């Protein structure tokens, strides 16, 4: 066949352009020439011109002026022009444009053309871009073609009907009788089209499904014929007869016996080639989709298990995708393959890793939590950045549900913070703090561990925030030095204050973190004995900090030192256990004792002031910090410290007795310890 010379010359010219600018120049010239040609009456080169325009369009340049030319070409009697015209219509027009309606009539005429290749063009275009109106107009034509034409046209008409049914559901009824009769055809293409059509019809309308149920035995016959018959060279793909048809027939084997047969054959199918695997996979999907008996399901899961061990990465990937879908219902079956799945965590490919992560998280249970967590933490340290947030939150959820002990839980959370502290969600910090307060016998251990982590690295904000909070709260335990759980390390008051000051001054610390550090420093003033002056000076420096939040806190703390020094010990006392309102929170050592409703009451009391605080700050501090601050502000409002109140602003000088905050802190002291 002769190549289109004018087209190829233009392509050559465009490709030889060395710069974008040059290319644009060439294209503009060509487009101008094409436009001129379009305006002329019928000339021999119309199809070449349109082809040129389509090439230009593919490069990304505008070509809408060719739309009407497409319409004209489609109406031409010459096949060469029709061919390019229809191609142009599919490329330049889409159903949303009005011009597409103009070709409806041409399509209608061409559908009854004497030449099957012209009919084929029309069918192809309708199936590709037919709008709902076009479909409604032309459906009767398609139905006619389904019944009375050669197999070449029938197969195309069938798929065209599929498109019509997808666009306009009501037209499904029209095609049912024709679809049924198509099943008796011998031609593979027609059969394939017929099956796709029937599936589509049944999907749209479950009643149709009932009517087609009678045809199932026929379909099974067809499938058996395909599978058991010998080599059919023209449909064969690597020795497996017509995989496409086999695949399309699979969803139909509803009767269990037939499915058994199919699976038997499928397991004998050569699975060394991708094609064999494709058929196997489709069988598995079918078995899992329909309500098959458990024996069959186990067989399907085993096939998936075999896939998991396949060398081909693609096969492993789809095996995990399918296992993910059934891990809820067939949990035990999937558990058997846990080892292989966990191994896939170490695969090079990010898609496979993601699948393995999802599946691993779904397979975590109370019995395997320790070993799984080891693997997951290992994964976290080397996983790609886009998966880290997901992995971290998955690990937290798993830890929360199945933690065998509080210490394990805290260790795990700390490990995650150290490895991926930058990727965890915001509520991790208050959650961890809440967890720590609950584990009172581990306070000493925790604060030592956090202190050491802080010394090593102050860039992970979540970790630093938790560490600061703990050092502030449990500073006395830190300084005491002896702790049964870890090796004793002598920490002096200066060391602790140094650590906190480093955080305060570091440019890596976010404003929220610095807030934590400042408050912690302040809390230490009641837990240490010698260096109170140092704390006083730190706090007063920050009284003129540019960050308004820090400045406000520093000023409040200053006030606490100066005017309300007698209150300081009480205000900065050890906090009660924070209650978390989450159901299903199990912990290995839960005492089951009902925790009193402390923080809720406290919150309610401090609410209006809390809100004010939140308005002022840009970032919500954790509940622990809020409580402390609200405690302070409730207190500060209680007396007539005029100058300070101006600075602090917004506090109602309510007639609160000085004793009130004290009672709030004291009354509900928790007795879990």
């Amino acid at each position, binding site marked *: *066949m*002769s190549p289109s010379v004018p*087209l*190829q010359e233009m392509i050559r010219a465009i*490709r030889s352009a060395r710069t974008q600018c040059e290319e644009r120049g060439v294209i503009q010239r060509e487009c101008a020439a094409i436009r001129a040609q379009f305006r002329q009456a*019928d*000339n*021999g080169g119309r199809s070449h011109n349109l*082809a040129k325009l389509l090439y230009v369009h*593919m*490069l*990304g340049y505008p070509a809408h002026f060719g739309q009407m030319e497409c319409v004209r070409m489609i109406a031409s009697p*010459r*096949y*060469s*022009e029709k*061919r390019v015209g229809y*191609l142009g219509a599919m*490329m330049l027009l*889409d159903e*949303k444009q009005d011009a597409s309606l103009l070709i409806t009539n041409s399509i209608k005429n061409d559908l009854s053309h004497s*030449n099957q*290749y012209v009919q*084929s063009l029309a*069918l*192809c275009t309708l*199936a*590709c871009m037919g*709008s709902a109106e076009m479909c409604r107009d032309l459906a009767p034509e398609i139905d006619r073609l389904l019944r009375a034409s050669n197999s*070449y046209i029938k*197969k*195309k008409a069938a*798929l065209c009907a599929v*498109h019509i049914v997808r666009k306009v559901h009501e037209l499904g009824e029209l095609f049912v009788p024709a679809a049924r009769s198509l099943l008796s055809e011998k031609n*593979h*293409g027609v059969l394939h*089209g017929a099956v*796709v059509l029937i*599936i*589509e019809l*049944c*999907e749209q309308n479950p009643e149709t499904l009932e009517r087609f149920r009678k045809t199932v035995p026929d379909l099974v016959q067809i499938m058996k014929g395909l599978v058991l018959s010998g080599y059919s060279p*023209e449909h064969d*793909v690597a020795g497996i007869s017509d*995989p496409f*048809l086999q695949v*399309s027939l699979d*969803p139909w084997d509803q009767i269990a016996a037939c499915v058994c047969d199919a699976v038997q054959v499928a397991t004998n199918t050569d699975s060394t080639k*991708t*094609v064999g695997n*494709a058929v196997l996979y*489709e069988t598995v999907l079918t078995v899992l989709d329909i*309500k098959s008996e458990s024996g069959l399901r186990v067989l399907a899961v085993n096939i998936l298990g075999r896939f998991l061990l396949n060398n081909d*990465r*693609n*096969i492993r990937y789809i095996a995990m995708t399918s296992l993910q879908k059934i891990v809820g219902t067939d949990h035990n079956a999937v558990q058997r393959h846990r080892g292989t799945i966990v191994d896939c965590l170490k695969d*090079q*490919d990010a*898609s*496979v890793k993601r699948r393995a992560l999802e599946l691993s998280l779904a397979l975590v249970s109370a019995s395997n939590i320790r070993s799984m967590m080891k693997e997951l933490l290992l994964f976290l340290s080397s996983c790609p950045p886009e998966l880290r947030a997901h992995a971290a939150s998955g690990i937290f959820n798993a830890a929360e549900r199945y933690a065998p002990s509080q210490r394990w839980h805290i260790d795990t959370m700390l490990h995650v913070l150290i490895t991926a502290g930058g990727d965890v969600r915001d509520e991790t910090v208050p959650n961890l703090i809440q967890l720590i307060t609950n584990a009172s016998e581990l306070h000493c251990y925790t604060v030592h561990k956090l202190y050491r982590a802080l010394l090593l690295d102050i860039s992970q904000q979540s970790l630093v925030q938790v560490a600061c909070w703990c050092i502030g709260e449990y500073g006395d335990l830190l300084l005491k030095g002896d702790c049964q759980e870890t090796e004793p390390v002598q920490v002096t008051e200066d060391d602790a204050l140094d650590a906190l000051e480093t955080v305060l001054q570091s440019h890596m610390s976010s404003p929220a973190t610095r807030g934590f550090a400042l408050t912690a420093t302040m809390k230490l003033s009641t837990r240490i004995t010698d260096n109170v002056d140092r704390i006083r000076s730190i706090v007063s420096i920050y009284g003129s900090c540019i960050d308004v939040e820090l400045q406000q806190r520093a000023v409040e703390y200053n006030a606490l030192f100066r005017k309300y020094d007698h209150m300081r010990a009480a205000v900065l006392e050890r906090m009660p256990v924070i209650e978390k309102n989450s159901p299903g929170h199990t912990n290995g050592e839960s005492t089951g004792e009902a925790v009193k409703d402390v923080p809720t009451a406290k919150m309610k009391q401090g609410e209006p002031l809390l809100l004010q605080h939140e308005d002022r700050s840009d970032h919500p501090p954790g509940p622990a910090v809020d409580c402390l601050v609200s405690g302070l502000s409730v207190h500060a409002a209680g007396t007539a410290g005029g100058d300070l109140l101006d600075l602090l602003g917004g506090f109602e000088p309510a007639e609160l007795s000085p004793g009130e905050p004290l009672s709030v802190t004291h009354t509900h002291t928790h007795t879990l310890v």
Partner: protein
Amino acid sequence: MYMQSIHLMQFMLLFSRQGKLRLQKWYVPLSDKERKKISRDLVQTILARKPKMCSFLEWRDLKIVYKRYASLYFCCAVEDQDNELITLEIIHRYVELLDKYFGSVCELDIIFNFEKAYFILDEFLLGGEAQETSKKNVLKAIEQADLLQEEAEAPRSVLEEIGLT
């Protein structure tokens, strides 16, 4: 619905290693602007992947199946329930068809004869579904259509050329 449709291919793209589109077939109605955006984003995503990686990836709410043949990437977007392995087979079958037609096909063949590549695709897939599973039949049909085209373009008389008939 417990039955799944065989195949709902939304679009197929062919592009070079530099990201130049060589073929784009869309089976869903989208404006030119939307098509451009999708092509651009998807091409970038795929070109960023390393050689030994999985042929499947999840992108937006679609499954993308792609394979590189020499300097061309063949990329299909299918809906979520589809069997990805079959899509890979479809891509491979299309490449085989091109190979048979052009004789040891290479990217240049597809650049200079892009309309032929489309015609072959349209003879193999219809509305996003495979219409003919026999390679021989597809190629035979294309051959016949090409003959028809040649007849239509047959050299015309001098009078016709100058527009007098």
